[in-house]
């Protein structure tokens, strides 16, 4: 029996047992579709987080007061104690390091904003002109805080604040009162919405000196640093640690987080999650494989007389084994392809429903899903096929 005839004959068998074949193909397909969709969700989530994180800056380092208990732990640093303050002088020192392109000191507080007969509490950010390029922020109108003029009473409004206070008139050039001080609006931020849990639409930004005076503090909340290049990130971190250790009397009491390290941590966690989810989905393929085995065993039993007849007209045991084998290959193959298409369709629907989520199945997952389906289908058929091949022809023929 030629290979082409074996495939053609078993294909006809698959087609003639329509309902049975469709059920197996569907079971296989759902397993493959689950792999394709779940990995797309996992990988989509990973890409979403990474995109969000990349959008907040390039080659970014964050200096915060307090020392992380376990090195590299982001949470430890955030929750850690604050033994010594970061100062504006520290920030200026770091700005002079050769690996550093620019820096932006940061203070955060709340104050009452009043203008045009309106009054509301807003989150106040104190910083300098370089905050805009470091954080990849955009202005809708006007200019940001002027360079080197941190003592000018300028204020930049978040998009929503500007809209609330000056819905009809031009915000630029307007005078506002923040806390006890007067400021002049120099610019309005472009609407960005929520980004990394921080809504820049509802803040105002003032020069760092004013912020420190307003909140009566000399310490900084953070210092944002942009390294000159990707290769400068590690040296910059070391230089920052060394510089601040020196200026803090030999105490290493600050923490430097690199955007790079956080990115790769998230990348690792979410990638592992995707793998785990793919593994769980693959289990449903094993279940489908067991279903194939069961159905093929039933088929061997059902077609016993037929197998006897085939032997009587000259089929060898290996002809019969190959026929059953080819049948399982067709079923798994059809299931794998249908599942892949279903999964791709599901992903398309996901992308339409959640445009921010790049729900594309990674190539490795699609290939692995299809391969696992084929392999389980084939392995599941080995035993039934050899049962069929081993049947005694006379006994098989006498079975009705």
């Amino acid at each position, binding site marked *: *029996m030629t290979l082409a005839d074996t495939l053609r004959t078993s294909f*006809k068998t698959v087609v003639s047992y329509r309902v049975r074949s469709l059920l197996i193909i569907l079971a296989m397909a759902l397993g493959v579709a689950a792999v394709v969709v779940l990995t797309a969700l996992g990988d989509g989530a990973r890409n979403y987080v990474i995109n969000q994180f990349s959008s907040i800056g390039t080659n970014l380092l964050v200096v915060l007061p307090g020392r992380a208990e376990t090195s590299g732990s982001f949470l430890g640093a955030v929750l850690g104690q604050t033994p010594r303050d970061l100062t504006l002088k520290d920030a200026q020192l770091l700005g002079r390091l050769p690996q550093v392109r620019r820096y932006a000191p940061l203070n955060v507080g709340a104050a009452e904003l009043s203008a045009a007969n309106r009054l509301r509490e807003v989150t106040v950010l104190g910083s300098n002109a370089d905050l805009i390029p470091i954080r990849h922020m955009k202005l809708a109108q006007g200019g940001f805080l002027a360079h080197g003029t941190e003592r000018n009473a300028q204020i930049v409004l978040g998009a929503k604040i500007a809209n609330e206070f000056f819905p009809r008139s031009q915000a630029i050039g307007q005078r506002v009162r923040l806390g006890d001080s007067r400021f002049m609006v120099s610019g309005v931020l472009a609407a960005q919405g929520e980004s990394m849990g921080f809504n820049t639409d509802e803040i105002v930004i003032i020069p760092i000196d004013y912020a420190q005076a307003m909140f009566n503090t000399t310490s900084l909340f953070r210092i944002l640093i942009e390294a000159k290049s990707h290769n400068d990130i590690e040296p910059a971190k070391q230089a920052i640690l060394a510089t601040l250790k020196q200026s803090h009397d030999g105490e290493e009491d600050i923490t430097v987080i690199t955007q790079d390290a956080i990115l790769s941590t998230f990348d690792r966690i979410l990638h592992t999650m995707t793998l785990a989810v793919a593994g769980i989905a693959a289990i449903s393929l094993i279940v489908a494989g067991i279903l194939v085995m069961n159905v093929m065993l039933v088929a061997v039993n059902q077609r016993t007389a*037929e197998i006897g007849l085939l*032997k*009587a*007209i*000259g*089929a*060898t045991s290996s002809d019969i084994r190959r026929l059953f084998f080819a049948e399982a290959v067709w079923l798994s193959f059809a299931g794998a392809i249908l599942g892949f298409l279903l999964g791709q369709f599901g992903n398309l629907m996901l992308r339409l429903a959640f445009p921010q989520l790049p729900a594309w199945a990674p190539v490795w997952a699609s290939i692995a899903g299809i391969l696992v389906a084929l392999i389980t289908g084939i392995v599941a058929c080995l035993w039934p096929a050899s049962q069929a091949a081993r049947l005694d022809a*006379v006994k098989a023929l006498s079975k009705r």
Partner: protein
Amino acid sequence: MIRLSAITRTFHMGDQTVYALNGINLHIASGEYVSIMGPSGSGKSTLLNIIGLLDQPDSGRYELDGRLITDLSETEQAQIRREKIGFVFQSFHLIPRLTAAENIELPLILNGMPQEQRQIRVNDALQAFELKQRASHRPAELSGGQRQRVAIARATIMQPSVILADEPTGNLDHQIGAEVMALLENLHHTGTTLIVVTHDRELGARAHRQIAMRDGKILTDQADDAG
């Protein structure tokens, strides 16, 4: 061409041993027409299955066309079944999901014949057995006589030298049974060896050589003068 010497075939039922064949000696020359008769359980089917290489004797020698069959591998035996032997069964044994033409084509597929050649052969067989109108019908849509004609067409499509028919008319009424026997006898006239197991004395008497069996043994073996 068929030479059986001291063939024994036993079956074990619990602690009991049943001698389905008990020391069979038989020589059938090429082109003979032989009928085998005997009560149920006398070993007729077992004998036919051994001649047709579907079953193996426990002891004895079997030579077919001068080759000792008992020494051949499973694959070699399958090849002989494919090329030299055609089986016709009482219950037809057609594959229900295949059409008449596809059932007839099966032995050619197993033999690896290219599709165009198969088409020609199957068409000729459909013509010869007057099944042209039924070519694309499934067995369920055929009468008993038509089914057996399909089975005979399938058994002869490889032009075997031996046709083994185990009660071929057992499921057919008298008239149709006689027609089927006539078809088989036509094959005999073209030189094929024909061995028919039958219950019907009248049909059995048509053969040129009549063998009677009982309890796994050959009781009588008579040849007509004409044979």
